[in-house]
């Protein structure tokens, strides 16, 4: 691919890599091609629908008081499924707290996400098994971890060997708001000067809680990469084919030893920042209506239907699967027990200190003092 072609905007408009229009038409791009077949697109459709259903069900569970909080990915499914499906098994992904779609692609059971947001555990999936890091809450911190990980695999000789089963890359997710953080900019510097195999995948969903993108940047975010010395590309974040193709190219570049790349997935946070937020207080509903026309799922459905690739039975099958998944998540969530109060002492240190052991005993005694009291 030609990365230089992606730097400049034509006619003053930032170039947007798009391979599937909102109307569901396939289009060509000079630098990026979608190289999978219609079966894969059917698979993407299923991923998108199921991911949205996970999100919908979790939001409902939070509203019913079953989850402490939920960070919705509504509207960002294509960015996450496209990039997530572009990963090879040996690649490692660092998420924020909103990457439920990437978690899905990495084989993490959504019930584990539910457990995390219910507050019964810390997520519980094994990051070494899924190559999907645990969620990071503090904005932008994971970009540094990803850069360090990338520098690590580079030193382990897992980059640029030419063996497709061996060469690995790192991908790190963050949002438009995070680009103002020092951590993110520092990770750009290190990734650049060490030529680290890391793809910076920024989902620009236009809003950092109530702060619009204009409050974070005067230039399109992907252009920031140039100043740090690596290429940046803006992709239609609601186009799962383009997100897949661009991320795949960026990952391949990293695995080959050509260094980092910034992918700006231009998308929209259709819902609230989290269930604690009410976006009607700071943004206009017209904006939401505008983005609804670019829905990431509808365009795939339009493509599949228009070209006679699937029949009604396919959609009904995916819907049935979604219903089943939602029911499983709901039942699983409601049956999660509260953790034992004393378990809070278990993982403060790898080996509990004598001081903490004493505090644990005191706490157990204190709890026992209430037994039979009420």
């Amino acid at each position, binding site marked *: 691919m030609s990365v230089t072609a992606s730097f400049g905007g034509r006619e003053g408009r930032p170039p947007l890599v798009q391979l599937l229009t909102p109307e569901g038409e396939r289009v060509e791009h000079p630098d990026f091609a979608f190289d999978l077949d219609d079966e894969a697109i059917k698979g993407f459709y299923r991923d998108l629908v199921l991911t949205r259903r996970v999100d919908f069900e979790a939001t409902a569970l939070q509203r019913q008081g079953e989850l402490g*909080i939920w960070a919705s990915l509504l509207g960002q499914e294509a960015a996450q499924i496209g990039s997530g499906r572009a990963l090879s098994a040996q690649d490692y992904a660092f998420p924020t707290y909103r990457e439920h779609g990437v978690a899905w692609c990495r084989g993490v059971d959504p019930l584990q996400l539910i457990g995390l947001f219910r507050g019964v555990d810390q997520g519980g999936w094994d990051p070494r098994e899924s190559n999907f890091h645990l969620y990071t809450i*503090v904005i932008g911190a994971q970009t540094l971890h990803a850069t360090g990980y990338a520098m690590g695999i580079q030193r382990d000789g897992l980059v640029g060997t030419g063996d497709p089963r061996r060469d690995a890359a790192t991908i790190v997710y963050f949002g438009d708001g995070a680009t*103002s953080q020092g951590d993110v900019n520092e990770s750009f510097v290190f990734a650049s000067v060490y030529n680290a195999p890391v793809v910076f995948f920024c989902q620009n969903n236009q809003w950092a809680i109530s702060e619009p993108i204009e*409050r974070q940047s005067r230039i399109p975010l992907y252009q920031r990469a140039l100043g740090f010395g690596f290429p940046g590309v803006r992709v239609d974040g609601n186009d799962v084919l383009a997100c897949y193709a661009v991320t795949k190219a960026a990952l391949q570049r990293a695995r080959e030893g050509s260094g980092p790349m910034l992918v700006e997935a231009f998308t929209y946070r259709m819902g609230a920042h989290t269930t604690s937020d009410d976006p009607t207080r700071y943004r206009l509903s017209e904006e939401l209506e505008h983005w609804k026309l670019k829905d990431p799922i509808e365009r795939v459905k339009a493509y599949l239907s228009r070209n006679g690739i699937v029949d009604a039975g396919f959609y009904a099958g995916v819907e049935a699967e979604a219903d089943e998944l939602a029911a499983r998540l709901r039942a699983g969530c409601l049956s999660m027990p*509260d953790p034992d*109060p004393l378990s809070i002492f278990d993982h403060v240190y790898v080996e509990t200190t004598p001081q903490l052991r004493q505090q*644990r005993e005191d706490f157990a005694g204190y709890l026992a003092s209430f037994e039979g009291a009420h």
Partner: protein
Amino acid sequence: MSATLAPPRTVTYREALREGLFEEMEADDRVILLGEDVGRYGGAYAVSRGLLERFGEHRVIDMPMSEALIVGAALGAAAVGARPVAEIMYMDFVTLVMDQLVNQAAKLHYMFGGQLTAPMVVRVQQGIGRGAGSQHSQSLEAWFAHVPGLKVVAPSTPADAKGLLKSAIRDDDPVLFIEHKGLYARKGEAAGPTHTVPIGLADVKRSGEDLTIVAWSNMVHTALAAAEELAREGVSAEVVDLRTIAPLDMATVLASVGRTGRLLIVHEAVRTAGLGAEIAAETAERHHGQLRAPVRRLATPDVVLPANTTLERELVPDADAVVAAARDLVRS
């Protein structure tokens, strides 16, 4: 029909803070507010709602998502004559501003030979109660009590919150103003526009004779509830609300302990090297002969705070725990 006195006006802690900000911004156009979501959104905990509409974008400044920049910019503005009030959404995120706050703001006056001042307030909120998890619930006030050059306050009532905020804004030194997420909806008597509370002065929230309970922020209400229960058992507890963390008003604490002879310190922060340790040490050094029982601390164990609200409630001392500890202390 006889005239009746109007009942005292009550406001929430949140409203009291908003009143304090509003009045100080009305009175002094050097006072500006800056942070993430402080303007159009009205603050993550709705403290600054309405201020953008009243004072405009020039003085209520929505900022990019960089805590270091928010506090660093406030310091720069303060150094040249503004009186900024910066909001950091969670106490936990002060880790991102430690250099600006600890190395820069706290030391500016000294390192510039007294030529510059940093009249700025950094508002944060901390504490448990919403299942906000390990990185959104910590009580870190002790860190800042350890930094000369900073003043730190942690009010417990609407009137104290307003009075201390006004004092903090008018103060020429940097002030870390610690709110508590469990306090915003708490109601209390409103304070008028001339009301201020001096920084560095504790307050006896309830008088008593048998023991002194020292608390601050949200824990004051736990202590007061415990004192109420203890009174039913015939134990008279005095509750001292520190209000200011630094400089610490040990005179009020020691005067109380001088009368009661027993001291129980209750805090939400984890136990080891918490502020309770400092109060206990000061008391031991200066009041050894007057203590009728060893000083007792009640605090959260030295654990990482959970997101689970049931665990949260179990871990942090509640009124029952305070009553039990006070009972032990009085009977020992």
